């Protein structure tokens, strides 16, 4: 039964991942007073890319061709680790979130060297920033997971989240800050505002978009799909924080969809009203997320009465 629910969850996540960028685009258009595109516009774009041929720069090697595939595969595999509706992910074991984070890491590694393979100074710049930012954001994710391990005494995604809600009402203190940090981790991981602006057309200030300048056709399409899935993956983690365990499965599904849509709307709003950081200020800003996460950690120490203040 639980496994079926996970299958439904994954199917739902995949469907939502197609809608996710569309929702963001609609929110951004509405707030800017423009006529919004169809919610399926990103899907049409990707389908069009699948019909196109691929151009490979003669500077590039096999690495450039391998990179998008490894990236997409890593994100798709990571999707199978997250619990849906309180049931286990397809793969669930002690320490699975470490595997999850490092799996995303190998995708990033390949994308970075893929961009460097083109020999373009611009792509080098993007690759370099991606490497730097992802090294800075990683501690925040581990700190959040560490805090959860503290609250719940468990060390796998499934148990972390299911025990979180049962443990103590004080854990809601942790949840609120953790969700805030996770939203921004998502923005950094997906290279969105305020770290990177996907709409910009100045290569000098781009991060992710400039890394994929030379990708085309099939490769570009799966890179796009992988980015959508990345949004949904983090959206699902956030949903796991917010959805209580002991409620009927139908409400859970409704809440799941609700959280994902709300997350997309939040991203859209953030992107509409938030200016991008100065590129040189990005590292400090990202490190601030880790310091917030440390506050989460200290709070959990107090909640679990390991750290006693008097």
């Amino acid at each position, binding site marked *: 039964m639980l496994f079926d629910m996970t299958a439904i969850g994954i199917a739902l996540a995949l469907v939502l991942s197609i809608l996710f960028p569309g929702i963001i685009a609609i929110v951004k258009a509405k707030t800017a007073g423009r006529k919004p595109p169809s919610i399926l516009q990103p899907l049409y774009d990707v389908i069009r890319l699948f019909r196109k041929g691929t*151009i490979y720069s003669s*500077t590039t090697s*096999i690495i450039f061709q*391998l990179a998008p595939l490894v990236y997409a595969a890593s994100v798709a595999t990571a999707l199978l680790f997250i619990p849906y509706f309180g049931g286990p992910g397809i793969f669930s074991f002690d320490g699975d979130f470490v595997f999850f984070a490092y799996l995303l890491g190998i995708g990033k590694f390949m994308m970075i060297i893929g961009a460097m393979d083109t020999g*373009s100074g611009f792509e080098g710049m993007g*690759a370099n920033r991606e490497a730097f930012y992802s090294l800075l954001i990683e501690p925040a994710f581990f700190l959040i997971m560490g805090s959860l391990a503290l609250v719940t005494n468990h060390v796998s995604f499934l148990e972390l989240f299911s025990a979180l809600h049962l443990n103590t009402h004080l854990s809601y203190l942790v949840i609120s800050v953790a969700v805030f940090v996770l939203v921004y981790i998502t923005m950094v991981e997906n290279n969105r505002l305020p770290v990177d602006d996907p709409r910009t057309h100045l290569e000098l200030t781009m991060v992710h978009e400039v890394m994929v300048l030379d990708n085309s056709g099939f490769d570009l399409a799966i890179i796009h799909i992988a980015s959508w899935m990345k949004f949904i993956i983090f959206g699902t983690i956030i949903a796991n924080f917010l959805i209580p365990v002991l409620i009927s499965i139908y409400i859970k599904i409704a809440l799941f969809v609700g959280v994902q849509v709300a997350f997309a709307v939040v991203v859209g709003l953030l992107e509409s009203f938030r200016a991008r950081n100065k590129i040189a200020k990005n590292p400090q800003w990202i490190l601030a997320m880790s310091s917030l996460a440390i506050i989460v950690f200290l709070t959990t120490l107090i909640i679990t009465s390991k750290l006693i203040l008097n």
Partner: protein
Amino acid sequence: MDVFVFKLILLLSVVIFVFDKKIQYFATLILQLTVSVISCWWAVSAFGADYAASPVPFMEFFGHPVTLEIDRLSAFFIFVINFTMLTGILYAKGYLKPYLEKKNRIEFALHFFCFLWLQISMLLVCMVKDGLAFLFVWELMSLSSFFLVIFDSEKVDAIKAGIKYLIQMHIGFVFILIAFLVAFLNTHSPFGFEGLSAYFANNSPFLLFLLFFVGFGIKAGFIPLHTWLPHAHPAAPSHVSGVMSGVMIKIGIYGILRVLTYIHSDLLLIGVFILVMSLISGILGVVMAIAQHDIKKLLAYHSIENIGIIGIGIGVGTIGIALELPVVAALGYAGGILHILNHSLFKSLLFYSAGSVYQQTHTRNIEQLGGLIKKMPKSALFFLLGSLAICGLPPFNGFISEFLIYSGMFRGLADGSLNADILMLAGFLGLVLIGGLAVFCFTKVFSIVFLGTARSDRTVNATEVSSGMLFPKILIGILILAIGFLPGLFMAPLNEIVMLFTGTYSIPENIDSVFTNISIVSIGFVALVAILWMLRKQQQQKCGKEPGVTWGCGYTGANPAIHQYTATSYANNLNDYSNQIMNIHSKKVVYEEDEIFPTDKEFSTHSTDVFEDNLVSKPTNKILFWLEKMAVFQTGRLQHYLLYALIFLLLVFLLTISNVI
């Protein structure tokens, strides 16, 4: 019988000197193989036995008997040593080919002789417990590796690096000697490891441990004891750097581990100490690595980083024992010990690949390389494999050991009290940072060396290296993949070693199901990549695939050879935040204001080691300064020297009549 053969080989090693250059290599190979087979046989039987390392009488050494004792820790190290030394000698055949004309027969013989003796002495270090014999073989190890380092003896740098290495090894030696003496004099128990248990039972262990840590830590390369490493590794030929970084520095870790088996009190302090030193080594090691342009120096700093990771595992394990957290203890030690094996694999692979690049391009400066993947695709692939593994990315072996350490630390967070939590927090934050920085560093070095286009004409004549040089890399690659994809197979023997330290605490049973899951995911992940590859192939057959040029963002004059990213610019991002450690100085000539027709300008950067500057160079320069002042007395005139003798005699006379001496 086997002991007899082993001894016979020690004697036979001399015959390398009588052979011709070509035969020398095969003689060494055969001797090494025999040594490896015998010692591996001992190691296997040590694993098979229920424990109780039965001492084998080996020889008489200055009147007292020396026995070989092989427990599971020794057995583990014997496997690691033999494997890496054998891949080293296999790789050496191709690597030394260009030297055949430059070096004479005796030089070659000495090199092979020392290579063989490096293996023998390392094996013996892991097998003897008697203090005197241990120090003797420890010295043999340092000496033989010294001669290996200075193989390129016509280069001043090599000699300098070798002497630096030799001096620092002897400082370490003194610390170990003092530590043994302290234990010996305090307890009157036998001189050597056997005597330590008596000392540690009755005394607070930390100070003696500190002595051992400094002594063995110089060999292992913990920061700030590491300053020989970044000089010796680049100076040595690549097969030597590979085995030195792969196994020899681990012998330092062996020493620390061996000492730890005798300590049963005050473990929290020791664990915290090891953890802190390891975190410093790990983080600073990788940050300093990012600043390097010399590929082998960069890899040397990564050895320091990985020693740090091993140390984090051991530190976490020790803390686990001290705080009575069984899972933390077992997983910490398991991760640390497995990382010893893992590092010996991917680091030797990386050094061998770097050596291949050096052989083809005659430069170690990565700023002059680029685009080599097109000329040396197989070497590039092996370097990539090593890079992915050293970054701890799944599904390769580095991930497995780091995963074990992480699991231990998160378990510690969940189960432990406040002080455990704070320690584990420091531990996993450090490990996360190290991982991220390693990715930063290896994306840099792989991209700059192998990707893009050539940055100078050094790479023009580069071709793929001979299959003889690729063969040992294949062996290593297979093991890397085996540990990465099927980690479950290695857990049972690993558990046996871990129990030496943790007593009754063993690796938790559920690790099997965890690793089964990891195997399935890893295989699935690779399969998914393969499926995507097929799909794309089909799509491209239908829709087309064509070559083009790199998009220059509208600028058609873009020339990848000039405009692509360099190692300096890649590191620059991080440099803004950590220049205290990276210590990069740039030299540039600025344009004068009245310069109407500017001439060529130069810009260069170089990085120096902060620790070496402040702990080694500055003090020795001070001493040298005063010693040079003393040279006033060395006038070269006989009259003055006679005067000194007279003053000395007078002094003795005066001191005697005033009853001072």
